[in-house]
């Protein structure tokens, strides 16, 4: 049995010993170096771009501007507003303007300089709150609004009238940079038939496939995308690789040579997507007994210069904006607005970390206002089986939030530990904070068009099994987990199964690898394929035995006669016979997600097919002398349906939690009022190091999802999502000061502490 086991990742050894090939490690005969000329300013008109001089530099083989793009100058994501290369005007610092391919990096650099880019600057809009000001430039449509989502449930004005306590608060979050260790990169190779092959780092090969065909003006049949070993993504390689692949592709076609284009770190930080900065205003009311009665939430996301994924990111943020609580009356308005800054996009959590920070902080604030313990307050209000979410969706099954909460409380010995921490006499004050959150697994009603997967499974004559899927491995362990699912389906040893690299020419469009959907959705398609193959094998065994198919069972790695279980054909023999008999041993299966429903006017419906659940308890230390906050310990309980591989599940919990800690404490990407980034370097954008990382106790809760493979439901994003509010709540517990703007840097914390007694 493979499911539930801590098998070693299939890709671990090659990655550890340096033999795994990332796109930067690849080379091809005649390969050129590609690079991009980016805008150094946030808004303006291009007044000079000297292409001829660039072309004359020795070693330069191709120079491409908007005019030279063979197909459409568009990077299709949701709304077609973003060009592959700026056409006459630029809208953000870092916007791509021109491309060069040359024999050497130095020739490329010389060519970029020779272009002598000149831009007539225009005043930029950098403050999202000024999107509607008459003086602000119009960057998108009439109103600078890319998306407006609503939820209307019950009558909030009436409900607030019945509340005993109402609070109104505003919370803010800033950018988060993915800081995947491997920067974006692509290798484009023109084919003999006039098509193009793309190798590269990406989450969503089928996005790239469509985008490259469009910009190259090629039929999709002549474009092939092969994902290379991908060095981290976290959402940052969802949509923007379409740009990078498009750049490499048009250069390669123009030069008729392979072109490798790898972004430098600063270039990557400046020009690639980020988590949306946000402002969330919450009005939240409860009765004396602690029951939530109403919520009104107004959300503003700073989307940047182009729409990209903002509408769907905002949708998830909206659906999660009231947390995992029963609230009978809710009114939510959420807007994503245009600014002259880098287009924001997908990042682990996809709009929900912003709104969950707000609601989880507000829930805590209201609990203290009511003088109810924050754990108890959550016990009263969290969603349980049979309850309805704020979108009116009934939670029918797979609801482990209560168990998560109780197990985290128990594991941390919450009550006693809190007492002990509060009794310490030290300038370093300690406290415990809690967050309870949820995650709508998969694309949900916001992405039904994309909610499909395909899987290819092939039993080899020697009994080993090859499979391929269209979702991608980016570090999370998908190839291993899916291999476990296939092995389990046949009842064969895990070692017999191998996963092929993702290649758009091998498997049908499987939608994007986002929304924590790969295990569940590719797992479902694989199980379909396996079921089909098992039927074929049963026929083979039945023929061998001269019996009917229906009394043959394929299980535990053999064919078994149900009328006499002692009669079996072992797996390898069965495969060999099946091959001999020319049975169909290779199948491609298609799956589409279980249905969802949505009314965009009321924001009511079954938003997601299932939810994962999580409770975090954070122990922080606040140094009252310096304002420094440390996350010392974290208990993180996650209901994921079924842990196919507990080691990999823990890896997601630990890694996501530390990213969430960075979001809460140290990570601050600053774009100034002129739209210029101030710290686009890893030396000034502080992600956690070994010395910052806390002790983490992962707690796995398994409340099975009946439509998931072996009960599993995705959760890879969830570990990040509730950490910042748990830290904020713990800071409050430690020093009784509420921070409503992440990250909680000493520069913000210290001024509030200043009045306190901070003697040694």
């Amino acid at each position: 049995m493979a499911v539930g086991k801590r098998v070693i990742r299939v890709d671990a050894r090659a990655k550890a010993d340096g033999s795994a090939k990332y796109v930067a490690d690849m080379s091809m005969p005649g390969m050129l170096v590609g690079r991009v000329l980016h805008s150094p300013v946030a808004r303006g008109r291009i007044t000079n771009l000297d292409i001829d001089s660039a072309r004359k530099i020795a070693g330069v083989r191709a120079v491409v501007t908007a005019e030279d793009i063979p197909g459409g100058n568009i990077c299709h994501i949701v709304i077609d507003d973003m060009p592959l290369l700026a056409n006459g005007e630029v809208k953000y610092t870092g916007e791509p303007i021109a491309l060069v391919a040359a024999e050497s990096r130095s020739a490329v650099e010389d060519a970029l300089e020779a272009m002598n880019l000149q831009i007539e600057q225009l005043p930029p809009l950098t403050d999202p709150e000024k999107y509607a000001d008459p003086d602000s430039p119009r960057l998108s449509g009439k109103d600078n609004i890319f998306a407006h989502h609503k939820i209307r449930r019950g009558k909030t004005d009436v409900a607030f009238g019945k509340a005993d306590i109402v609070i109104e608060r505003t919370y803010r979050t800033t950018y988060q940079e993915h800081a995947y260790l491997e920067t974006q990169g692509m290798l484009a190779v023109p084919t003999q038939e006039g098509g193009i092959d793309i190798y590269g780092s990406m989450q969503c090969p089928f996005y790239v496939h469509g985008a490259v065909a469009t910009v190259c003006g090629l039929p999709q049949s002549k474009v092939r995308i092969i994902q290379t070993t991908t060095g981290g993504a976290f959402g940052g390689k969802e949509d923007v690789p379409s740009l990078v692949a498009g750049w490499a592709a048009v250069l390669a076609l123009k030069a008729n040579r392979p072109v490798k284009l790898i972004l430098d770190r600063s270039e990557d930080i400046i020009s690639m997507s980020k988590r949306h900065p946000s402002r969330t205003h919450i009005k939240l009311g409860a009765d004396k007994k602690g029951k939530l009665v109403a919520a009104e939430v107004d959300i503003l996301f700073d989307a940047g210069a182009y729409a990209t994924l903002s509408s769907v990111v905002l949708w998830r943020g909206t659906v999660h904006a009231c947390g995992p609580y029963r609230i009978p009356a809710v009114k939510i308005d959420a807007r994503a607005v245009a600014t002259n800054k880098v287009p924001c996009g997908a990042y682990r959590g996809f709009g929900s970390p912003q709104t969950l920070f707000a609601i989880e902080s507000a829930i805590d604030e209201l609990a203290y206002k009511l003088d109810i313990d924050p754990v108890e307050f959550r016990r009263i209000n969290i969603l349980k089986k049979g309850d309805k979410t704020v979108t009116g969706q009934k939670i029918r099954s797979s609801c482990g939030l209560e168990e998560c909460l109780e197990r985290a409380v128990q594991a941390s010995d919450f009550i006693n530990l809190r007492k002990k921490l509060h009794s310490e006499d030290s300038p370093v004050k300690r406290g415990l904070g809690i967050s309870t959150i949820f995650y709508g697994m998969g694309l949900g009603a916001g992405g039904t068009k994309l909610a499909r997967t395909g899987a290819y499974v092939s039993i080899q004559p020697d009994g080993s099994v090859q499979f391929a899927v269209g979702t991608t491995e980016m570090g999370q362990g998908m190839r291993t987990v899916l291999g476990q699912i296939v092995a389990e389906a046949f009842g064969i040893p895990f070692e017999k199964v191998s996963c092929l690299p993702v290649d758009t020419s091998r498997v049908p469009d499987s939608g994007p690898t986002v929304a924590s959907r790969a295990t569940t959705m590719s797992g479902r398609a694989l199980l379909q394929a396996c079921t089909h193959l098992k039927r074929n094998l049963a026929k083979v065994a039945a023929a061998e035995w001269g019996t009917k198919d229906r009394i043959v069972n394929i299980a535990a790695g053999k064919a078994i006669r149900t009328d006499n279980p002692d009669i079996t054909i072992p797996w390898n023999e069965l495969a060999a016979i099946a091959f001999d008999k020319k049975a169909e041993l290779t199948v491609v299966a298609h799956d589409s997600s279980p249905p969802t429903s949505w009314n965009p006017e009321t924001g009511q419906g079954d938003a997601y097919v299932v939810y994962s659940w999580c409770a975090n308890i954070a122990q922080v230390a606040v140094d009252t002398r310096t304002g420094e906050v440390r996350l010392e310990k974290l208990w993180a309980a996650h209901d994921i349906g079924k842990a196919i591989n507990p080691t990999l599940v823990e890896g997601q919990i630990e890694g996501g939690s530390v990213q969430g800690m960075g979001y809460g404490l140290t990570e601050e990407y600053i774009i100034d009022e002129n739209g210029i980034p101030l710290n686009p370097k890893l030396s000034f954008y502080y992600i956690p190091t070994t010395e910052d990382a806390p002790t983490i106790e992962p707690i796995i809760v398994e409340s099975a999802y009946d439509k998931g493979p072996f009960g599993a439901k995705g959760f890879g994003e969830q570990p990040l999502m509730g950490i910042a509010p748990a830290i904020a709540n713990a800071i409050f517990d430690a020093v009784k000061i509420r921070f409503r703007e992440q990250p909680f840097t000493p520069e913000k914390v210290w001024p509030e502490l200043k009045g306190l007694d901070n003697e040694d």
Partner: protein
Amino acid sequence: MRIEFTINGHPVNMEIDPSARLLDILRENLDLTGTKEGCGEGECGACSVLLDGALVNSCLVPAFQVDSRSVETIEGLRETEIGKALIDAFCESGAIQCGFCSPGFIVASTALLRSNPEPTESEIRAALSGNLCRCTGYTKIIEAVLLASKKIKEKR
């Protein structure tokens, strides 16, 4: 300009550009692509190698400075006792996710275990503080180094 040095125990003699970094000649001239470029400014440790046995960021070492010196990369260290033990332990502990930082961590951990065969958790945290990992949260990396240390001790 011409330089001579040893790479993973083998002598090499090559013509280099004065602008070349050690990282560039490893990856482009010697096809040793296990050493990665993550930031180009010595911040992430993905390009970690050993120079005369000392841990360095190969993105900040001008290639001309390795003349007459000895360089060890992941491709050499993976054949050593400590390197093998670390790779096994990283695999077993689940210390690898996207893997882009992993060779750098193995190199930095080798440097640590060579000078300090039985490090404490806090010594491991300090020794690996210049290697960034965005996936794992470090817990399993630290466990892996402790495990490798234990395994090596048992074997000796």
